[in-house]
């Protein structure tokens, strides 16, 4: 019961702030709502027992990526907001059309799911460690070592790329 209340509350916050992110005019406010949204997503992770991921979410997303966004918003503070004149919206029909399509699909899945419930999944091979952090760590450094290394390369490339892009003269 408590879990359900928590879930519904968190879910409502996530969706509400997500809507605000997309609809707010002021970009800085939008970024702030994004932070709140991410914090609630982290809370959801805690609810799902993924504490490590929750901490990473806050650390990386809220404390890192969004600060970057805020930084850029402040740097690129506009004399002329991009949506000041003309129609602020673009491809509205397409956007909402896509949304409707996804919604339809979702409905279909939900109906299908309720009609024939999924078979219980076979148990996954046991991991020799207990605890959320340990589990994630074990997986990262055993089965997913190569993707992990690739991800680190990706980050390195992104870092260099960002420096090259943002630096005025090299």
């Amino acid at each position, binding site marked *: 019961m408590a879990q359900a209340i928590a879930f519904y509350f968190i879910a409502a916050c996530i969706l509400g702030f997500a809507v605000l992110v997309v609809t707010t005019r002021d970009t800085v406010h939008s970024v702030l709502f994004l932070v709140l949204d991410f914090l609630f997503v982290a809370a959801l992770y805690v609810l799902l027992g993924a504490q490590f991921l929750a901490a990473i979410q806050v650390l990386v997303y809220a404390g890192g990526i969004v600060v970057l966004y805020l930084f850029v918003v402040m740097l690129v503070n506009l004399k002329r907001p991009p949506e000041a004149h003309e129609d602020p919206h673009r491809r509205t029909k397409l956007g909402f059309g896509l949304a409707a399509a996804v919604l339809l699909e979702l409905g279909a899945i939900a109906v299908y799911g309720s009609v024939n419930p999924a078979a219980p999944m076979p148990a996954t091979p046991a*991991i020799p460690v207990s605890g959320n952090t340990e589990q994630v760590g074990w997986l990262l450094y055993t089965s997913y070592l190569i993707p992990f290394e690739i991800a680190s390369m990706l980050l390195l490339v992104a870092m260099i790329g960002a*420096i090259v892009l943002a630096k005025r003269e090299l």
Partner: protein
Amino acid sequence: MITPVHYMLLSAALFIIGVVGVMVRKNIIIIFMSIELILNAVNINLVAFSAQLQNGIGQVFAIFVIAVAAAEAAVGLGIILAFYRNKETINIDEMNLMRS
């Protein structure tokens, strides 16, 4: 009782909001933020399944997604800055240099 379906629905809704944001807004920073929302929707899904299946694989993938998001944000914002410096705009509709 909260089932994975609930999480899926939440994730899908977040995904839709993200898609609408990408499609509707002109401000490229907000578009990037909408993409972050989409990625988060994916993560919620992954973590929910990870919890359902009692293994950490979903979380591992979520970590990869976060890494990708970080890379995307760094490069994307770098592009925005570079573009803004030259064109003084962050309106995506005015970013049509490649169009003849």
